[in-house]
């Protein structure tokens, strides 16, 4: 019941002086808020990275001229690769096809962005994906209607297109698109198929694309662009073997000597995940640093406010002692008060943190998840902040001489 009493006193102090309490608890609020917001967002991105990147195309990897992620992880290596690595050409894809026994499919891929239009309707900033004819086996592209293009159409650089769901529904609402003559940029294409609705990921539509044959792509967008090679391992267990075979084949193709570094990049979803893990770990480390400072500052402020409160209530403490309060009673009273205040800061921080995470995920494509452990961590940490930083003021109160305290003015 002394616990409730202490909580009551703390809550009353909170109500009576909201601004002062808020400032007192700012450290705790900022601390827990950052934990909750960052953990929610990182958790959201984490589950995206793990499910989408790893789940879907886990046995597909890319051979690219440059790994752009290297710009983040190793800028020097990235710049060197930028200067040195030769571009990858269609001939490389054909060369690789029978050099990777562990792969079930090897295909060419290139990507641009353009406007797609039909009569008076158009959609901007659509991903134009150039592909060799194996792409339905490599990409996630189930047909909604029509067909994919054939090898012959690719070889002849035919102007045919398979539409993504959004392009299809925007240009042909309720109409049959097959055989229609659309324009990609300024070039005319015949629609031969449309892909199912693939939903959204990270708040971004996965339906804003058009597939065209790779040779057509190179003809339209310039044959000097470097392309990517997509390799699908026959089985997830063969992924590493396929990577090794592809690396070996590319090195031979480029005539590299044993000591020379690869002049191409292999990007697997595992790469992406480990890159993400690197980034999220450094965010976490920075977070722990910021949060510790906020909480220590918060604790010290809390301690000072409690010390002021002890001084203001010296006479009350003297009275309580005169009426029979033992040291432990007084210690309890002030510790409960400090812990309650601290926890209020924690709860406010948690609420604000989730609000921030929710707002960020509304205005940006970042998803967020509520991690129960982060709530528990926030509450436990603020509980201990109150306990640790409330102990000194509480023991100061408990050790007051009753006679002196009673006559304090």
């Amino acid at each position: 019941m002394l616990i409730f009493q202490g909580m009551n006193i703390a809550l009353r102090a909170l109500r009576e002086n909201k601004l002062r309490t808020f400032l007192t608890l700012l450290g705790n609020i900022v601390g827990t808020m950052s934990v909750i917001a960052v953990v929610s967002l990182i958790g959201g991105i984490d589950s995206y990275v793990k499910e989408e990147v790893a789940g879907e195309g886990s046995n597909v990897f890319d051979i690219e001229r440059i790994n752009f992620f290297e710009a983040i992880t190793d800028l020097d290596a990235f710049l060197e690769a930028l200067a040195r690595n030769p571009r990858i050409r269609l001939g490389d894809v054909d060369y690789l096809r029978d050099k990777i026994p562990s792969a079930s499919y090897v295909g060419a891929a290139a990507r641009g962005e353009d406007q797609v239009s039909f009569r008076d309707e158009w959609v901007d900033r659509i991903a134009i994906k150039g592909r060799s004819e194996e792409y339905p086996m490599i990409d996630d592209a189930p047909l909604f209607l029509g067909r994919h293009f054939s090898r012959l159409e690719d070889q002849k650089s035919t102007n045919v297109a398979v539409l993504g769901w959004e392009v299809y529904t925007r240009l042909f609402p309720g109409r049959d698109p097959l055989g229609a003559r659309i324009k990609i940029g300024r070039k005319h294409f015949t629609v031969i198929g449309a892909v199912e609705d693939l939903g959204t990921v990270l708040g971004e539509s996965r339906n804003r694309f058009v597939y065209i044959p790779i040779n057509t792509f190179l003809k339209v967008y310039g044959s000097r662009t470097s392309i990517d090679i997509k390799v699908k391992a026959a089985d997830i267990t063969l992924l590493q073997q396929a990577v090794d075979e592809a690396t070996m084949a590319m090195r031979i193709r480029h005539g590299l000597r044993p000591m020379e570094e690869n002049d191409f990049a292999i990007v697997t979803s595992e790469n992406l995940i480990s890159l993400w893990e690197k980034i999220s770990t450094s965010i976490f480390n920075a977070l722990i640093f910021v949060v510790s400072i906020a909480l220590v500052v918060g604790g010290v402020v809390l301690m000072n406010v409690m010390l002021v409160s002890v001084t203001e209530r010296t006479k009350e403490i003297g009275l309580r002692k005169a009426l029979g309060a033992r040291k432990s009673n007084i210690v309890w009273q002030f510790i409960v008060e400090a812990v309650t205040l601290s926890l209020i800061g924690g709860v406010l921080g948690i609420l604000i943190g989730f609000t921030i995470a929710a707002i960020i995920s509304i205005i940006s494509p970042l998803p967020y998840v509520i991690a129960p452990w982060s709530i528990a961590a926030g509450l436990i940490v603020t509980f201990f902040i109150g306990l640790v930083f409330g102990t000194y003021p509480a023991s100061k109160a408990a050790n007051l001489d009753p006679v002196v305290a009673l006559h304090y003015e």
Partner: protein
Amino acid sequence: MLIKVSGVKKIYEVGIQKIEAVAGIDLEIERNEYVAIMGPSGSGKSTFMNLLGCLDTPSAGDYWLNGKEVSNLSDDELARIRNREIGFVFQTFNLLPRATAAQNVELPLIYGGIPADERRRRAEEVLESVGLTDRAKHRPNELSGGQRQRVAIARAMVNRPSIILADEPTGNLDSKTGIEIMSLFDKIHQAGNTIVMVTHEKHIAEYTRRVIRLLDGKIESDVRTG
């Protein structure tokens, strides 16, 4: 014998100076006595009351309360004695400003570990005995000075202490209210309680049955009047 004090001293050291606030007092008080302590300012009245009330321990001498030696107990043991054996009434009332009259009265019972329903019952009971049943839910700032002191007296009695100690209980009240409070003390005394009261005023001391005069920390006179 309720109280037996022998050779009790309280010495304050201020710098190199030693002040004998209580300079050797021998005193016995029986159950159901009604004692006034008088004396000029600085004569040691409050200091002696603090010793009687176990708020402070003597520098020398012995103090038996209810047959128990209490002059060198630990802080927590003293707290226990104050809670069980002693009821304090102060000149400035010393009520918790944010608590209601009833909550103020319950405070000693909380520290005595009395369960909530019994606390409520006993608080009601003593508030009734000081004539404040209808003010139980009021806060101190909604009460007059006399009513506040009644609440304080109810609080002093709620634990049924062996002795009630009052340091100038009428000092902050006008004379009419002071007389009301004194007739309340009278009633409490007649109900069998032991009261020791510090006062400056003769007409207040006349309510009591024994007047002890202090001078320079010593008993100057000890006169029974009733």
